[in-house]
């Protein structure tokens, strides 16, 4: 690959011109190798990420039903149409409600589990594994368990069985939006699936908090428990918390699997991705409107990400490296 430089390295020539040539050779060698290592990935990234994005933006300005090579330019009509579509705007509301439930609950549960697992001394690995194990389960499989066994709307579902012991009538968990019990089903499902993953991030951060901080706090008279948690643990976890919240938000935006599988026949509780799927790949195959929706969604995610990064200072640690 780079025989010339190797020879140069092996026999460092004392003469100045030779040294200059060797340095130039080294640089060329680095450039060549850089592209050798990153080239395959970058080509794929361009073909399978950047080209589709560009194509999507292009399609969003055209009338494109059942075709991906459209001819009639319609400007912003697709954008107007999809923003006028109550199903799509409603899906943005669904996302907001979903995020408002899932982000704080996952944050709190994963932090709580991390604090528990961090403090126990025996069977630490066992408990960590138990909480992390659901990460291996797919949303489809989890949706099956939730829909058919736990939150089945009839008497033999586990939730309704337990409620019946207390004399509560059968609850139709997923079958109607009023009262919106389906949120309980969806949020608990995702909590179970993802809390263990974020618990690991918090555990890693907890182990990085210097013990001296707790010693100093004890000398200053801080009571172990709530006070040390409030004034030492929580501030020390700030960077991790920020990253976790950002990841949770992005994950919430991408919600598809559990909604698709739990509420496939419903008209309510459809998040943006399910709506886009129906628009672009449903009966009408409207790639133009689907693309316009994808562009709007991407812009929204970008704005939220940047906004949150500004407020919470995500990436500061990266810059200081």
């Amino acid at each position, binding site marked *: 690959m780079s025989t010339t430089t190797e020879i140069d390295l092996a026999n460092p020539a004392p003469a100045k011109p030779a040294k200059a040539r060797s340095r130039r050779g080294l640089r060329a060698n680095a450039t060549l190798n850089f592209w050798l*290592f990153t080239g395959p990935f970058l080509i794929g990234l361009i073909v399978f990420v950047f080209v589709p994005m560009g194509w999507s933006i292009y399609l969003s300005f055209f009338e494109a039903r059942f075709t991906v090579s459209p001819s009639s330019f319609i400007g912003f009509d697709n954008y107007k149409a999809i923003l006028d579509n109550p199903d799509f705007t409603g899906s943005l509301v669904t996302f907001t409600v979903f995020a408002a439930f899932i982000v704080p609950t996952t944050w709190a549960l994963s932090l709580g589990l991390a604090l528990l697992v961090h403090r126990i001394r025996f069977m630490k690995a066992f408990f960590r594994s138990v909480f*992390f194990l659901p990460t291996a389960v797919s949303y*489809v499989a989890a*949706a*099956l368990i939730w829909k058919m066994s736990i939150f089945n709307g009839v008497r033999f579902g586990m939730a309704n069985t337990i409620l019946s012991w207390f004399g509560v009538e059968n609850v139709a968990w997923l079958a109607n939006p009023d009262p919106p019990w389906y949120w309980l089903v969806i949020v608990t499902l995702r909590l179970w699936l993802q809390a263990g993953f974020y618990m690991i991030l918090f555990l890693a951060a907890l182990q990085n908090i210097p013990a001296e901080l707790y010693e100093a706090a004890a000398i200053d008279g801080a009571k172990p428990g709530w006070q040390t948690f409030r004034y030492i643990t929580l501030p020390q976890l700030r*960077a991790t918390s920020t990253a976790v919240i950002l*990841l949770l938000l992005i994950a919430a935006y991408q919600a598809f*699997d559990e909604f698709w599988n739990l509420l496939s026949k419903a008209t309510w509780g459809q998040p943006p991705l399910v709506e886009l799927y129906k628009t672009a790949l449903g009966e009408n195959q409207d790639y133009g409107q689907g693309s316009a929706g994808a562009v709007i969604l991407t812009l929204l995610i970008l704005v939220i990400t940047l906004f949150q990064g500004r407020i919470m200072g995500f990436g500061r640690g990266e810059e200081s490296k």
Partner: protein
Amino acid sequence: MTTTAPDLGKTPANAKKKRGGGVIGNTGLYLATGVAALLFLIPFYLIVRNALMTDPEITGENWKWFPTDIQWGNITEPFKDETVDFGRALWNSWVVAILHTSGILLICSLAGYGLARIPYKHANKVFYGVLVTLMIPTAVTFVPSFVLVSSLGWVDTYRGLIIPGLFSGFTCFLFRQYFLGFPKELEEAARVDGLSYWGAYWRVVVPNSLNFFAAMATITFISGWNSFLWPLVIGQDPSAWTIQVALSAYMTNQTVNYHLIFMSTAISILPLVLVFLFLQRWLVQGIAQTGIKG
């Protein structure tokens, strides 16, 4: 992760706390952890329970925590079912997950190394190009990606299922972060000894990074095995379904065959649970090492 790192028990503050908190504090701690663990295990138990029961028992008036008569015969049912070709879907999932994992590890680790270690003038600009793709959630690009893949004629093929997913900006990013922390001295010694970048990478860097590769392999395998949206989009024909799409098809079927559905679910989860229990130590270390922790 596995070592109980900075041991708080050694500090005087904690020693005092432990004496003060005493048996009651510890019991409470274990009780809370135990109850939480139990709740986390219930769904797994329900899968096994339902998979080994008869339908009348599952849907019976009286809830039973244990099957009265364990139906071992249920294990073969998914493979006999005629509405969904479960065996085929299982095979597809294995092929896709294995090729997905090996491809992503190869391509993304090379790129991550190049970005982290090879001194090229514009490396940072290239890296920003990769970072941009992290901001675009992959799920949002599925409409244009489907358009592209269908115009390549890759619908219903392994190519269509596997190749578009290989270029993960996130995995590349994680590898870059890892290689930034890799001890430079090892590679420099190899380079002085006359190895090229390529040689140093394969003979020094990779063999010394197997823990991280194992962690990334596990994470990638799990996400490949569990992915649903893309296989749903690409698998228009049932012969191209992966196991997740097949499971989903059970839900929309007219007749609900509970024990069959739960046996299929159990079969779909089992390999991951085994892989996971075997590799969880590396997996946890790997996630903790990824640099997400900020």
